């Protein structure tokens, strides 16, 4: 045991370098990508691996993100393991083809470096890009730090390619905050990753001339609805698969994963729900509060936003007094942010419902510190005492 711990490979990597390293070990057949800040270093580093002959990957240098995803779709339909990476406007340019990848049931894995959508133009972090794609039929995993970027990317391959799932997977992580920050990352052996993900075998390959297959035919009012119903079913079936792969990955790496992560939940009657790097800021805030004798604040971190972990949300929040849901994107004209809407909706089925408020925060990379999270805790305290929600949606850190 001791020897294994000592033999662990630990590297200092940025989030983008981590993603490239995970991709190197996954060694996909095809990577088609177009660079965009702050995702560029993934493609740049990966191109070097290709140029140095470290991977067998066919690297397709496309002219746009629309083409990147289209090339991945063609490759995956032929039976290749295909990967790409993008962010913000790049993801927006992929929009049309995101739906096609999901509806053709091709398990493409894509790193999404979360960045604010234009306009006005902004290169920093928020979740408006991937949150906008939440109904595209892709599984979405959100990462708190570089280690989770690595772990999620490797698991994503196995989740998406599971025969009960066969859906594409986005591994999301915060632009600059994670993508350009150097952290300690534990890396598995190349062989371990190779064995864990196994080989991708598509059931119906476009290149199988003995068993010809048509991908993408016209599908009108007679069968389109049935194909959409199948996609809903695949998302539901992904829930146990994500849990099982998370456990299996735990046995391999010592880090197991669920759909959600609990932090100080057993002591808490006030809970903050968040995803992405801010979960780390919230953990630090909770630790600081505990040092000062305040122990009743917990964090429920959402790792899988698609499929949405409604049962975990219900089970973990049913006995709590009040909940603050953090959204790093606005849903203009809606009641609140996308995470808030779904969390609050999941709680509606409970007999005794906790009070829920929404905090929209960090848009366009606006700093979100421990001090900001303390304001959220103050807000929760107020609700706990008054048993009333005065402002359903709050804007954390915006200047009035």
């Amino acid at each position, binding site marked *: 045991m001791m020897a294994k711990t000592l033999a662990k490979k630990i590297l200092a990597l940025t989030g983008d370098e981590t993603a490239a390293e995970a991709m190197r070990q996954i060694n996909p057949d095809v990577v088609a990508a177009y660079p965009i800040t702050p995702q560029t270093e993934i493609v740049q580093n990966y191109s070097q691996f290709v140029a140095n002959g470290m991977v067998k990957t066919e690297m397709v240098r496309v002219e746009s993100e629309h083409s990147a995803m289209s090339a991945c779709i063609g490759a995956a339909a032929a039976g290749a393991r295909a990967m790409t990476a993008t962010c913000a406007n790049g993801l927006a340019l992929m929009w049309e083809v995101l739906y096609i990848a999901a509806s053709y049931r091709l398990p493409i894995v894509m790193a999404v470096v979360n960045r604010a959508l234009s306009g006005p133009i902004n290169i920093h972090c928020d979740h408006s890009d991937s949150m906008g794609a939440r109904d595209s039929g892709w599984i979405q995993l959100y990462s708190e730090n570089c280690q989770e970027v690595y772990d999620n990317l490797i698991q994503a391959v196995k989740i998406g390619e599971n025969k009960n799932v066969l859906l594409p997977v986005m591994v999301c992580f915060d632009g600059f905050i994670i993508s350009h920050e150097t952290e300690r990352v534990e890396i598995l052996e190349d062989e371990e990753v190779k064995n864990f993900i196994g080989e991708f075998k598509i059931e119906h390959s476009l290149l199988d001339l003995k068993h010809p297959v048509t991908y993408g035919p016209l599908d009108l009012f007679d*069968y389109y609805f049935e194909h959409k119903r199948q996609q809903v079913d695949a998302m539901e079936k992904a829930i146990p698969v994500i849990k099982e792969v998370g456990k299996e990955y735990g046995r391999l790496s010592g880090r197991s994963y669920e759909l959600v992560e609990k932090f100080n939940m057993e002591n808490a009657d006030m809970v903050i729900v968040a995803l992405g790097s801010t979960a780390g800021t919230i953990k630090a805030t909770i630790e600081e509060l505990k040092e000062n004798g305040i122990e009743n604040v917990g964090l429920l971190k959402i790792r899988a936003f698609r499929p949405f972990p409604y049962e975990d949300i219900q089970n973990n929040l049913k006995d709590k007094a009040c909940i603050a849901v953090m959204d790093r994107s606005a849903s203009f004209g809606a009641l609140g942010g996308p995470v808030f809407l779904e969390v609050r909706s999941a709680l509606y089925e409970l007999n005794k419902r906790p009070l829920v408020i929404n905090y929209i925060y960090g848009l366009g990379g606006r700093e979100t510190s421990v001090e900001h999270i303390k304001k959220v805790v103050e807000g929760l305290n107020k609700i706990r005492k008054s048993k009333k929600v005065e402002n359903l949606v709050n804007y954390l850190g915006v200047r009035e």
Partner: protein
Amino acid sequence: MKEKGWKEIPIGGIILEAGNAEKYLTGGWRTFRPILDKEKCKNCLLCWIYCPDGCIIVEEEKTKGFYYEHCKGCGICANVCPFDAIKMEEESKYQQEKSKKESE
């Protein structure tokens, strides 16, 4: 053909049976119907070459007519015919005649 439920069909909207478009009848899309004038036709088969749906019936190298179950009435055959042997007629006329016959 009985339509199947979502659990009974392949995922991803793929079609596993090659050439099964033949089972999908598209003749109902037609607004104009090609009519062959066998007197004028020289069996050059240009229409057969150009038809995008393979709807020209050819037997022993001779043009015999059209597969109306699949012909969408695009009129390319009439357009390319060097001998003016194909004319496009309004489909509604034939449909009226058909329903008249059926009601008799």
